[in-house]
């Protein structure tokens, strides 16, 4: 149901901090492979998934420790489920490192709350720097969790709103189908192509809102694309306008 990819801007500090966690996660897989080259041991399997998550995160933030790979706005672009799974692995690794380093109490906040991370007591002095880095990484993970949750909530609508939007999408799609037919039969290729794109966008929108008006397969629906909402706003859809305002609000914050 979710099309959709999270788009979360990141800073150079976030990138560096996350990579400091990701790299040892990958190294663990290498070490497990060295110890058990034939894959007979459980260690290899246990290290594989977290390492895969670490590689995924590193790809989302473009690998290098310093600087960005391009001059574009650096944004993590990732499917929400994959990002959540990766964050889980990162947090498990951080918790394990806390334990290995002898930190007696590592109390990090609930993923959905905005409280700061608290890590306290009995820090062995030789590990202070690493522990500080782990704490920062944990804070970033928590911030990413909150951002994913916020974006996913924004991309879904309930049955009531869907019932308001769907007839408008159906009407718009029917209109553009008719216009596409006219443009093709009149050999107006530019107009046909434009109407074809509108039809494609509206088809995807109707996929998200379900083609069946009365017996949808779910009570949670994906929000139509921004371009579709903008079209519906022109047809005086207040629901589309609310959703569009919310989506654009997020973009502006980005």
């Amino acid at each position, binding site marked *: 149901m979710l099309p959709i990819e999270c788009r979360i801007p990141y800073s150079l500090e976030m990138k560096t901090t996350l990579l400091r966690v990701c790299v040892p996660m990958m190294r663990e897989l290498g070490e497990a492979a060295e110890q058990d080259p034939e894959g007979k041991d459980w260690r290899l399997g246990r290290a594989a998934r977290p390492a895969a998550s670490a590689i995924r995160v590193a790809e989302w933030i473009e690998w290098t420790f310093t600087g960005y790979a391009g001059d574009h706005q650096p944004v993590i672009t990732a499917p929400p489920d994959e990002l959540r799974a990766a964050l889980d692995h990162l947090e498990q690794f951080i918790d394990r490192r806390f334990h290995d380093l002898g930190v007696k109490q590592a109390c990090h906040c609930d993923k959905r709350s905005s409280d700061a991370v608290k890590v306290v007591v009995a820090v062995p002095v030789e590990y202070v720097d690493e522990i500080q880095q782990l704490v920062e990484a944990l804070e970033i993970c928590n911030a990413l969790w909150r951002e994913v949750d916020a974006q996913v909530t924004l991309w879904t609508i309930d049955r009531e709103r869907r019932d308001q939007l769907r007839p408008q999408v159906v009407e718009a*799609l029917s209109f553009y189908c*008719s216009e*596409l037919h006219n443009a*093709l*039969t009149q050999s107006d290729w*530019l107009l046909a192509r434009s109407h*074809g794109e509108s039809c494609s966008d509206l*088809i995807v929108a109707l996929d998200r809102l379900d083609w069946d008006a009365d017996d949808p397969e779910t009570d949670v629906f994906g929000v139509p694309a921004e371009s579709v909402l903008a079209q519906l706003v022109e047809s005086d859809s207040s629901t589309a306008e609310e959703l569009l305002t919310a989506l654009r609000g997020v973009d502006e914050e980005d």
Partner: protein
Amino acid sequence: MSRTIKHEYRNMLHTALVMDCAISAMALGDALMGGDVISGQLLRERLEVELRLLDDLAWAPDAARDHFELTLSDDQLARAARRLHCVGADLVAEYNATDVDQRTVEIEAGREVGLKVVLLTHHLLRDIDASDARPKEVC
């Protein structure tokens, strides 16, 4: 798999594709307004593939390229080819069903297009069936 077709073959497909795309669009609009969900979903699949194929073949008939890359998946391309095969066959059938003295220039031209489209889509479907991993030119 990446497939390309030559300009002359593309032109035949384009004619049939535009005809059928116009029909699909109108039928989908009618199904939606009539609340016919099942027909709507079938036509949705058809129109989506046809629009993608038009993107590949270029919308305007006078596209100045020697080759056209087909980016649809084998499954989608086979669906479109089967559909266009029927369109070609219909054009030929229309010619055959029309009395000789009633055949217009359009019906004559339709037969020409129809025969070529039937042959071309036949080759295309055979190629998809026998496809392997190598990029190739279909015709």
